[in-house]
């Protein structure tokens, strides 16, 4: 994993140094204008941090299983097994399938079992034993779980294309999963854990398909590895099951060359498999839709002018007071356009009247 990451980084460096234009460096060489080479290199990369909210839809089908429900719980068993008077099933198949206590397949509230007082609409009826063969009654459980993601990524933009890699941590808050059939007979599946954490490592590919004034619209695809932690027993997950794909649109509002506001809705495609002790398995799909917001910034390649009296608006060259060398500095703060056109950074448009109402000349 680390070796692969190192190879990718080296390739990116080579790509950056070859793709960035040579002509501008000629100017700096010609006039011996100093820029910190490390800062120049880092400036080519955009660092993004976002967070937001989403819903992860946990869904699984019990096709090929018997499903048994009584007042003590819910259990499944491979329906290729012949049923006898007992049911040696499994529970907690969402996260960590374990053999359950062998159940007796009796049917209380039939003859000759005891009668009920106040039998009509009696609550005990809801907890009567219910056995279903999913071949005759297809059954699945699903529900959308609130999800809080936190993303950190770095990418490189070349013309309209984007390439990068990132890391995302997600916390899924579990709810009960609703049955797809016989909702009046089958209780929802209650997970035996309140939340689960996901960690994702991924590569990013993107293409800017639209630009509107200060807005950029970038179609992005994330491909990588998503692994649940803790509550979901990953030792039972099948090999190669941790792959995920995320498709989304990154809407970026450009404050300046160094700072952007990012809003990113995206849809996640991922799943995992839980293997049961009897060599059967269940695939759990947990696709997600999330909307994240955050910032994306580039480390400025040149510093702000050190002279307080220097009111030059554009990037310009000064003589470094310490070294005596010519060096390029910027006249604007990081979140403002660095080489603004006349009046560009000074908001005099009517739509900024409310924002500038405290100024002497807000309009």
């Amino acid at each position, binding site marked *: 994993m680390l070796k692969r990451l190192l190879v990718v980084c080296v390739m990116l460096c080579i790509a950056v140094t070859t793709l960035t234009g040579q002509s501008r460096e000629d100017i700096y060489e010609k006039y011996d204008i100093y820029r910190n080479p490390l800062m120049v290199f880092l400036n080519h990369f955009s660092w993004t941090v976002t967070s937001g909210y989403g819903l992860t839809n946990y869904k699984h089908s019990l096709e090929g299983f018997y499903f048994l429900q009584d007042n003590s719980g819910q259990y499944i068993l491979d329906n290729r097994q012949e049923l006898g008077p007992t049911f040696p099933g499994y529970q907690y198949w969402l996260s960590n399938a374990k053999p359950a206590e062998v159940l007796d397949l009796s049917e209380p509230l*039939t003859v000759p079992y*005891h009668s009920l007082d106040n039998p009509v609409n009696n609550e005990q009826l*809801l907890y009567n034993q219910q056995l279903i063969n999913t071949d005759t009654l297809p059954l699945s459980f699903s529900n959308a779980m609130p999800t809080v993601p936190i993303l950190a990524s770095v990418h490189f933009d070349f013309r309209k294309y984007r390439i990068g890699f990132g890391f995302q941590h997600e916390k899924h808050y579990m709810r009960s999963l609703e049955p797809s059939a016989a909702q009046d007979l089958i209780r929802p599946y209650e997970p035996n854990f309140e939340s689960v954490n996901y960690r994702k490592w991924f590569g990013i590919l993107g293409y800017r398909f639209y630009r509107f004034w200060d807005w950029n619209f970038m179609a992005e695809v994330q491909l990588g590895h998503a692994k649940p932690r803790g509550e979901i027993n990953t030792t039972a997950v099948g090999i190669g099951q941790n792959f995920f794909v995320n498709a989304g649109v990154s809407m970026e509002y450009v404050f300046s060359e160094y700072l952007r506001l990012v809003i990113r809705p995206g849809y996640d495609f991922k799943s995992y498999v839980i293997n049961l002790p009897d060599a059967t398995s269940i695939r759990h799909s947990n696709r997600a839709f999330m909307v994240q917001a955050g910032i994306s910034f580039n480390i400025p390649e040149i510093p702000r002018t050190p002279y307080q009296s220097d009111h030059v608006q554009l990037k310009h060259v000064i003589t470094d007071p310490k070294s005596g060398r010519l060096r390029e500095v910027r006249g604007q703060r990081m979140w403002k356009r660095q080489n603004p056109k006349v009046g560009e950074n000074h908001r005099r448009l009517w739509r900024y009247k409310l924002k500038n109402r405290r100024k002497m000349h807000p309009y």
Partner: protein
Amino acid sequence: MRFIQYLIVSVIIVLVSCKNDDGTPPSSPDDQASASIIAYLDSMGLRDEAIADSTGIYLYRDGDGTEENSVLGQAVSVFYVLSILAGDTLDIRDSTDSDTLIMKQGSSAIYPVGVDQALGYMHLGEKWTVIIPPSMAYGDFSSEAIPAYAILHMDIEVIGVASEDSIFNKELAQIEVYLQEKEYEDTINDPHPMEKLASGIVYQRMVDGGTDVGPTAGSETILSYRATFLDDQVFSASSSFQYNYGEGEEVAGLDVGVGLMNVGDSGVVVMPSKFGYHSSAAVIPGYLTDEMVLRKIVPPYVLDVDPYRPLVFEIGLKSIQNQ
């Protein structure tokens, strides 16, 4: 910019069009049913005469009342005509039916629950008309004949009211007749004396297993049984039924009978309904019982045992595993 303006206008149009025009929230099925019932009573000129129960049921009496032998809390036999309000007839039960419908009022043993509630107003010999809203009838259940949220119209005639004691005594008499027919008391042919318990349960040992091993509380008991009514109609049987004796898992009369047996014995237990399924449950109309069992509204034994039916169990005690 123009695109954003169009987007904002579109969103506003969608939000406005989705708003309820008159500003009032949509009415629930119960509110609609109440309005329909009141409109029906007004059209029939019965609004002032009808009694409005707090559950939403409306009922009025046909003719004079007797004010004697109230149905409240008693076992009741009725004739009825059940239909959808201003709609099709669902079921009729009258003197042409071979068996009498008997059920217990006030014990959540009658479905729809609106019928149970309405019977509490009635007396022996009276005729009433009851209009039941969906919440006290079948709710959202629908079938070919019954639409969802149906309002029921029911004409009821109370033909019999009996207390629990009188029913019990009547069952004891029926059991006595049954025993005489079966000649269980003929000790010449059958040397094992019949045991008539004070509770009304009768046990007759048919075969002596030759052991002195009887069940104790909590012991795992395996037996075979054949369950019939007094008319010998079989309603349940099993060649190997396993349960824990003395823990109330099965009907009380069966437990009492097994307690009198030893391993290898065969015997017959006859019990009044009080020690069987007592008032069971009655679903009106009866052809909906299967559906109501499936919907977990009434227990499965209702399919096999009607209210107030004495039971006969022919038992063979196979083995006991004391714990």
